[in-house]
């Protein structure tokens, strides 16, 4: 491991030498964005699915599949540390880099707390910094009084209805605003599929749907009308580019949630 800061004690003074730039690889677009937010984006030399990212990360060398990054490509990229996104269960990949002795850091963001913990861990190990605005945003959300004032369902798509479970970052953010995710705890799945029968029996105040195009919004509206005709359930479309990532991205677009009583507060 290369240490970023070399402290030189001379007559009680601490001088810092410029750190050696680490060569980093990431195994998901989410972890790439997280590193970018920590100011480590310039050190990323390879990633998976760069095509879904914006420049300059779009032109990074690809490590291949999200579920099975290519080990030969990783070795050829000569990286110092790999940031492994454990939510993807890349077991073969992690087993192989462990065996090859390639240093790696695992992250698995499932809540505001784990987002902050993982970001802090990466910042400490790799030498980045969580921007003050984002840190205080997370802290302010965590400090909000946890009183349920509305119910919601958070859907990745509507047909079939695939929901975000409670152990997901986006659900936790909405929970911080006083929302109650209607997906039961006992299902214990990150993204359970909801049956139409179950949907008919539950009527949330809000349905948030991750959308990619305008057509998705229209389709979601039609599905909602089918499930709950003449209901006051409100549909809120969440653009995938901002909300489908388990990193700081959703926090930068909170005003798009359009919830009653949402104040910008400490969030950007």
């Amino acid at each position, binding site marked *: 491991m290369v240490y970023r800061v070399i402290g030189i004690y001379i007559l009680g003074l601490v001088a810092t030498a410029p750190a050696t730039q680490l060569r980093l690889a990431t195994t998901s677009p989410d972890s790439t964005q997280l590193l970018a937010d920590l100011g480590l984006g310039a050190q990323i030399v390879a990633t998976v699915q760069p095509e879904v990212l914006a420049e300059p990360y779009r032109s990074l060398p*690809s*490590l*291949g*599949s*999200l*579920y*099975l*990054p*290519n*080990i*030969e*490509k990783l*070795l*050829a990229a*000569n990286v110092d540390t790999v940031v492994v996104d454990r939510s*993807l*269960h*890349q*077991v*073969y*990949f992690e*087993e*192989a880099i462990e*065996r*090859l002795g390639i240093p790696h850091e695992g992250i698995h963001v499932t809540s505001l707390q784990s987002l902050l913990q993982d970001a802090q861990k990466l910042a400490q190990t790799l030498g980045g910094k969580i921007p003050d605005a984002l840190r205080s945003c997370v802290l302010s959300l965590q400090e909000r009084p946890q009183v349920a004032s509305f119910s919601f369902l958070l859907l990745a798509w509507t047909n079939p209805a695939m929901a975000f479970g409670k152990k997901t970052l986006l659900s936790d953010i909405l929970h911080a605003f006083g929302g109650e995710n209607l997906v039961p705890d006992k299902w214990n*799945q*990150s*993204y359970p599929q909801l049956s139409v029968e179950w949907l008919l029996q539950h009527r949330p105040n809000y349905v948030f749907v991750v959308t990619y195009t305008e057509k998705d919004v229209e389709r979601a509206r039609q599905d909602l009308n089918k499930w709950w005709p003449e209901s006051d359930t409100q549909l809120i479309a969440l653009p995938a580019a901002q909300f489908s990532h388990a990193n700081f991205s959703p926090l930068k677009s909170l005003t798009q949630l359009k919830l009653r009583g949402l104040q910008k507060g400490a969030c950007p």
Partner: protein
Amino acid sequence: MSYKRWLWVLGSLSLIVLCLSLGAEPIKASEMFLKGSASYRILWELRLPRLLFVVLVGGALAQLGGTYQILFRNPLAEPYILGVSSAVVLGVVAGEALFHVPVLSTASAGLGFLCAGLATTLLVFISLHAGSRQVERIVLFGMGLNFVLSSILFLILSFYNQHIGGGSLRWLFGHVPWISFSGVAVLYALCLPLLGILYVLGRPLDAISLGDGVARTLGFSPNRQRIWILILSSVLLCALVTYTGAIGFVGLVVPHAVRLALRPSGSRTLFAFSFLLGAAFLVVSDSLSRILLPPFELPIGIVTTLIGGPAFLLLLWRRVQ
């Protein structure tokens, strides 16, 4: 050995060695022996152990396929026909989905062996009580077991598919892991003796292939031989499947290809050439899975079927002509 057979041996070995040069990244000749360089690590720490692993898996699957085809006097028999592999798959997937036991771990292999052990015990029990219709009953029971276990597997997958995307879901399609030399050594130590014993049992198998009555006349007990072969092959198959999942087509096609191309006189010759050709076939499939769409790696089970299917049809067509 005839000139034609030598040609097959040399061709297969050359293919295997040639495939060492294929992968997602080019190997620089100048860095091949430069310790610590990327090319050195790719060649010696990744590709070579993987190649040795694939040689063993491909060879063993082909030999097992040949064994089952003779044992059950059924040209459609293949290593996965009896449900033992389904039991392993179920154990591994259930372990990951329900108890978060990662694929390739010792605990996962243990669960796979446990389920396979139960399936084999059931098969042996059926064999012991099948009387004169042993072959039919074992095959039918095995197929039934396959269906039941597959249904349970799909039930688990339908609930837990998103938790196992990069693990056992990929492994289900047939997957070659990046394995270390020590891992390869363990697998060789377990499988080579079993393959050796199955090779030695080729003689009783030849007798069985002529019918149970002839086998008894020649001094073999067909029922007892079948049970022993069933147990040995189940252990071997279980060891392979815990690593790679179910890689289709090798065990079915390769023995037939050997029969069509080389017309072996007995089981032992069939086993030897099946092992060699199976190894070469799987090594080529593995290399293709890594170089067809780099840096993406295709599941090897899909590649074996895509290559093996047309190749087999071509062989059959030539035979008909």
